[in-house]
């Protein structure tokens, strides 16, 4: 008994020593992905960020990733494994990894963690996200003007603040240019399931939607829109440029690369500190993909002007007057939403039908 304990103890020490020595010459960066790197959307863009880190630091850095990790206890196992293998910095790239990231971070105080789109921080856990709702404002504006049936379909993933914010922002800007517009929201409860996303798109199109907005990770809704004909959609999380000659009229691109490079450098320099980053169009974390010629020229210039006004900081998408769904006042005229309310947004604004699943 004692001997075996001694043996395991020394083995662990040996393992730690070896991994320590590897870490000394190379910084190891781990990435936990919710979908496959070939999803063409969310995970694809995170992987582009990982490749940018490799390109920037070359031999000085080693990156590892695990794809299609389910949100839940399994994620904890994957993160623990990465930390045990000597990762110095781990990016966990989905909202549903939040508690798992915090749990694993407690066990490995020397490893730095970066959790995307969450709100729980710790001494060695930073959170980062992009102000996707700024992109949604541009999308909503285009959608409101482009729809002929006045029905816009919205494929939503999970009822979390990030998704609800997107729906509100898109609806707000669509209804400003087209008061008749009606949003039909479908919750699919998955980030990545092409068949289900395609089914949802098909259902919305059958119910008369001629604009499809999506907050899921694959290109399946665009493929369905292409089959249906006179329907437009937008690239989500990535440019999805392969549908440019089809339904895709613009896109929201998540540009993670600069952030990943900066944070990896901070770990190398020893200057890494816990941060709460929430950047938008201004900082370049959110980009609007090329607006195609399917959009009339005057509408395109309106959309670009809207983008420019957010880039300069002159305009905030959630500027009052805005009422909540029940008609009560949320923001008074000229009032701008504060980040705290936005980060925890779990209500619809006035005009949207249905309710946010709780």
């Amino acid at each position, binding site marked *: 008994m004692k001997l075996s304990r001694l043996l395991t103890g020394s083995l662990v020490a040996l393992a730690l020593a070896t991994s320590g020595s590897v870490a000394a010459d190379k910084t190891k960066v781990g990435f936990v992905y919710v*979908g*496959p*790197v*070939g*999803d*063409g959307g969310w995970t694809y863009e995170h992987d582009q960020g990982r490749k940018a880190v490799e390109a920037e630091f070359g031999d000085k850095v080693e990156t590892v990733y695990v794809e*299609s990790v389910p949100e839940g206890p399994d994620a904890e196992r994957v993160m623990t494994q990465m930390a045990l293998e000597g990762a110095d910095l781990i990016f966990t790239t989905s909202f549903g990894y939040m508690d798992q990231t915090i749990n694993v971070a407690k066990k490995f105080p020397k490893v730095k963690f970066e959790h995307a789109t969450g709100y729980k921080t710790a001494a060695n856990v930073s959170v980062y996200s992009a102000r996707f709702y700024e992109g949604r404002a541009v999308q909503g504006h285009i959608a409101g003007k482009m729809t002929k049936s006045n029905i816009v*379909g919205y494929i939503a993933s999970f*009822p979390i603040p990030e998704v609800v914010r997107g729906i509100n922002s898109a609806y707000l800007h669509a209804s400003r240019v087209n008061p008749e517009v009606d949003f*039909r*929201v*479908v*919750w*699919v*409860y*998955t980030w*990545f*399931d*092409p*068949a*289900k996303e*395609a*089914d*949802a798109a*098909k*259902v*919305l199109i*059958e*119910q*008369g939607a001629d604009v499809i907005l999506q907050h899921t990770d*694959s*290109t*399946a809704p665009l*493929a*369905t829109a*292409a*089959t249906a004909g006179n329907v437009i959609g937008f690239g989500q999380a990535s440019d*999805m440029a*392969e*549908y440019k000659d*089809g339904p895709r009229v613009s896109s929201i691109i998540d540009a993670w690369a600069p952030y990943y490079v900066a944070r990896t450098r901070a770990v190398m320099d020893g200057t890494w500190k816990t941060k709460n980053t929430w950047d938008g169009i201004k900082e370049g974390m959110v980009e609007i993909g090329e607006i195609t010629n399917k959009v009339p020229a005057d509408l395109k210039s309106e959309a670009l002007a809207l983008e420019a006004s957010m880039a300069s900081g002159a305009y905030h998408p959630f500027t009052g007057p805005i009422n909540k769904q029940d008609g009560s006042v949320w923001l008074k005229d000229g009032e701008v939403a504060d980040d705290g309310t936005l980060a925890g947004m779990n209500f619809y604004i006035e005009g949207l*039908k*249905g309710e946010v*699943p709780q």
Partner: protein
Amino acid sequence: MDLSSISPVLLIASLMVAATPILLAAVGELVVERAGVLNLGVEGMMIVGAISGFAVAVESGSPALGFLAAAIGGAVLSALFIVLTQFALANQVASGLSLTLFGLGASALMGQSYIGIKPPPTTAIEIPFLSDLPVLGPILFSHDLVLYLSLAIVAGVWATLKYTRVGLVLRAVGENHDAAHALGYKVMRVRICAILFGGACAGLGGAYISLVRVPQWTEGMTAGAGWIALALVVFASWKAGRIIVGAYLFGGITVLQLNLQAVGVAIPVEYLTMSPYIITILVLVILSSDKSGAPGSLGRSFHASR
């Protein structure tokens, strides 16, 4: 809430499309399990079928060739399972699981250069007059050929198992392989044929997702459909007729709940989302109250020397 914007005709037409992949995969697995083999690699064979079919359809421009390639692709992967379980007598559960993992990886590799490409359209048949019928036209006479093929396969499997000598031998092998062997039936040969058939069906089901239902190639795009097909076989108590009920019920409620959400029905979305699973399980459990059990030799390895 305006229920009138749900068109029942379009709903039924699209539920048939949504149900076809799991129907195909499940009927193939049914034959495999009736022969006494448990192949948990359905998901892997589906995804390999999805990419094989997609790749060949894109390269040749012919969806028909694509579906053929998908069936071959699924069968080739199942041949690996045959080597492991029928010749090396490896554990069937472990071999099946590894087949799924291998299939997911291999398909991602094969599909590297096919991301973002549009496949040639699989055209729906156009029967003059019949396809234009008001209600029956869209439901019965305006689908693609593979959908009809899937129904034909189920009918064929049902009739073969119930009425033919081949079906009887297959069931005998599945119920008690020692007895079947003693009677002089080639247990291994029967099982190999069944596994290949199951692989081909799963491959077809996968290609139906990548060529008709979505249509595009994305890594991991079957997203668990193979597991649902496996569960369906058990809940349908190994009967072909009930597989149709189960698959169409599952596909139907999946599409219906999306429709209900889109019109804003005041049922909490959480219940709607879980409804396909719960209702399908409930209905099939009630149907299978006659206690028809699993094939007797299910999951057991066979070697003539024992």
